[in-house]
């Protein structure tokens, strides 16, 4: 592996550059299914619906930089909705086989077909007997989208299940996720029973967060160091590799569980729910992750010693850097109320940074949007205090800080650690973007991240930065972004979304 974080930054910037549309709406569930099928190297998705669905779902939300160029569409018209679109589906499948010779075709129904599904199975059944190409249909478990309460539930779960040093995984997305539907179709209609190989895993390539592709690459390296084979990244592989995916002894998944559970039912493949990277922050978090995976594979003991050795080695390598951090004073300012307990632990324990202030910036509108109740908010504050206590931090905790207070805080420390960009006018030479978004899940990568952070501090505390008397304050750039329509659109979305959330 390189001694730098370039691949992490590339994954972060090149794959997740445009995320703001999510503030104003979510993609339909076809998007998740399109992602799953679009990632299969030799498969072609056919959207069974009207031309508009075929047009816009070629853009795959999860990987906006890479559309599903070959995606096909049955382009249903009014009469097809009334009399059935069987012939169009049949013709689309035949044409797709002729044109692309794919190993697999997945028929993904649009919402109009969800209402009149009957013809899909019969068409697939009749054509499957005549061609070598595998054809599967993605069944819709629910209409339109995943359960609207998921986001709030996931957040509450992450707050409630934080036990003082890590989070216990209990949350899983419920029915209606397009990705899960597509994966379940693959499990049920494509995979076949295999003799499982010891010390072999599948990694589910989905929803590992911003920069996830590099994070997962790091995981593969870490697993290799433990002599664990990655059988396949699923669904990011070939059709044949999907067919034989049950060769793995364990599936490593994030939060979309139903398909993994179905795979266990059908083929006996166990699964390990990693949740998100937040559960395993820091070198010790990474150690815990691979120990848990090793235990699930029945090789906990040998893996444990290897992990301890490597952990100690990384800590030794970081000794000098951690001493260097001691020369400076820091304030942690965050509006990421869910992440704060993790950040406190991470900075204090892993970086060896002594925080002087921790400032919580919980915006009421975000709380409402995320469905955080007053009780959960109180629990969160309790978690933050517990994190401070557990990590031995002497930081002063400031809640709902005003801009004036934040300016005073930034004046009293050498550096302000934030989420992404400051939302108060702190000068650029004082502000350090937090590492919340780039979290390698391999020890070497994580060590490099801390070293990289030290080099930023070294530079910003040097004469080139310190002698800049007019470093720009970033908020000045965006002070005007209080556009009425923008706010209105966000509010509309929140309200309509919330309305669905509570089923009213």
């Amino acid at each position, binding site marked *: 592996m390189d001694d730098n974080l*370039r691949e992490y*930054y590339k994954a972060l910037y090149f794959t997740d550059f445009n995320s703001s549309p999510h503030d104003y709406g979510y993609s339909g569930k076809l998007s998740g299914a399109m992602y799953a099928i*679009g990632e299969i190297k030799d498969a072609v998705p056919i959207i069974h619906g009207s031309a508009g669905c075929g047009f816009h779902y070629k853009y795959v939300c999860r990987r906006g930089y890479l559309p599903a160029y070959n995606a096909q569409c049955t382009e249903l018209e009014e009469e097809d909705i009334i009399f059935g679109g069987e012939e169009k589906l049949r013709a689309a499948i035949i044409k797709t086989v002729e044109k692309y010779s794919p190993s697999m075709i997945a028929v993904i129904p649009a919402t109009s077909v969800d209402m009149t599904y009957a013809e899909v199975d019969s068409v697939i059944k009749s054509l499957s007997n005549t061609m070598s190409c595998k054809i599967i249909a993605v069944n819709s478990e629910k209409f339109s989208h995943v359960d609207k309460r998921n986001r709030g539930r996931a957040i509450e779960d992450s707050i409630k299940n934080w036990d003082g040093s890590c989070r216990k995984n209990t949350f899983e997305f419920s029915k209606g996720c397009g990705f899960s539907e597509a994966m379940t179709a693959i499990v049920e209609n494509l995979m076949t029973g295999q003799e499982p190989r010891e010390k072999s895993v599948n990694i589910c390539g989905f929803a590992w967060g911003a920069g996830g592709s590099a994070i997962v690459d790091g995981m593969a390296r870490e697993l290799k160091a433990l002599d664990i084979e990655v059988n396949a990244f699923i669904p990011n592989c070939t059709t044949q590799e999907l067919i034989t995916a049950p060769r793995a002894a364990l599936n490593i998944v994030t939060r979309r569980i139903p398909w993994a559970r179905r795979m266990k039912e059908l083929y006996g493949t166990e699964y390990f729910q990693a949740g998100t990277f937040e559960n395993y922050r820091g070198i010790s978090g990474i150690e815990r992750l691979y120990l848990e995976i090793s235990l699930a594979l029945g090789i906990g003991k040998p893996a444990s010693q290897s992990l301890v050795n490597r952990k100690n080695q990384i800590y030794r390598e970081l000794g000098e850097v951690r001493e260097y951090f001691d020369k400076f004073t820091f304030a942690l300012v965050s509006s990421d109320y869910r992440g704060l307990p993790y950040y406190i632990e991470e900075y204090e324990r892993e970086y060896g940074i002594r925080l002087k202030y921790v400032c919580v910036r919980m915006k009421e509108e975000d709380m409402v949007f995320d469905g955080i109740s007053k009780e959960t908010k109180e629990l969160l504050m309790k978690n933050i205090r517990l994190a401070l206590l557990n990590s031995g931090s002497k930081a002063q905790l400031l809640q709902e800080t005003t801009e004036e207070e934040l300016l005073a805080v930034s004046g009293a420390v050498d550096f302000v650690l934030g989420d992404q960009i400051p939302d108060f006018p702190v000068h650029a030479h004082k502000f350090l973007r937090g590492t919340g978004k780039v979290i390698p899940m391999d020890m070497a990568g994580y060590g490099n991240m801390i070293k990289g952070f030290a080099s930023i501090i070294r530079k910003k505390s040097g004469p080139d930065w310190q002698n800049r008397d007019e470093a720009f304050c970033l908020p000045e750039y965006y002070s005007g972004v209080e556009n009425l329509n923008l706010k209105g659109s966000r509010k509309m979305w929140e309200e309509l979304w919330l309305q669905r959330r509570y089923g009213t």
Partner: protein
Amino acid sequence: MSLCKSCKLFGAYRAAVSITDSAVLIHSTIGCNWGTSTFHNTSKLMDIRQCSSVIYEEDIVYGGRRTLEKALREVCDNYDSSVVFVLTGCVAEIMEDDIEGIIRDTNCNKDIKIIKSAGFKGDMLSGMEDAMRLLADNMKPAAPKKNSINLIGLFSDDFKIDADLKAVRKLLGRQIQINCVMPYDSYEKIQEAPGACLNVVFSGFEPVGAYMQERFGTPYIVAEYPYGIGNSKKFCKAIYDALNIKSHFSLDALERITLERLEHAFDYVKKFYGMPAAVVGDGVRAASLKAFLESELGLNVEVFLNSFHDTKNRDFDKEIELSNSIMIFGSSFERGWADRYNIPLIRYTYPVFDSISIGNKNYAGFSGVINLVEDMVNSIMTMEYRRSGMYG
């Protein structure tokens, strides 16, 4: 070679060819002509005013007099130029022909200037300086015109130079007259350069400013290239202050318009914060661009190179390799690094030979901020990356 240090001949050539009504005769072997024209012509295909004397083996043996005489006569006959620059390359200078004598004897009816510019005698910056000193030697003393300035250190083959100059004129407003852009102007205008009351010298060309002050008494200030909002304001303020005049218009209005436009990309701009990058470029531009990227967009410039100064004893290949940089700002030569690490390259400094800049898409001034941000965002959005799938 990835750094644009180059040689004295390139510097002299760039100054000579920047004079819009000059002709350039490169007394050298043909490669010098080819290389200089390649980097000059990319965005100016109609602006070819140069030729080579085509020094050959027999010239090495018998001397280059005949070849140079013939070339000079051809140049005088074939170009409609106010001045002819004869640049001597390495071979010509090793031969030690009496260039001045040959020119005198040829008796051409053109104003012919010689610039001794053997590549082994110095770098590109030294060639530029020599050429501009020669130009200063041929200037005509004049009474300074009120509120007029010369801009010194801008060349016709700088990337985006025409669009940037337009933006600079707009930035300075009508109160300030640009007397001449040196050396990118007509020969007549350059000769009239002492008619300005202030020389605005871009970083790297301080010796030229000092020389003109010594010869004509014209005071000078050293300016950073106006990349970004902060540097654009600083640039204006420095000039207005030096001229002791008060601006009739508010830069705040321009700033506001810029920020309003940037709002359309506000979420992308925010994402630039902390992005690791490398900046490589000429002394006129590199430091200013770095300041803009760091102070206004929050990028983390991990590797920085001012090609006028910083090239000795540094292994930039290694520095870039070890860095986290995922965007490079530089010349076409930096494409090698961009390709190697599969990261975007933003071209802004000489030489650029794999893109053209013929429109009004400036990088300088307030509107330049918008264009730069736009190109940065687009370079990420259109990046070749994991084309066969996201994971695995």
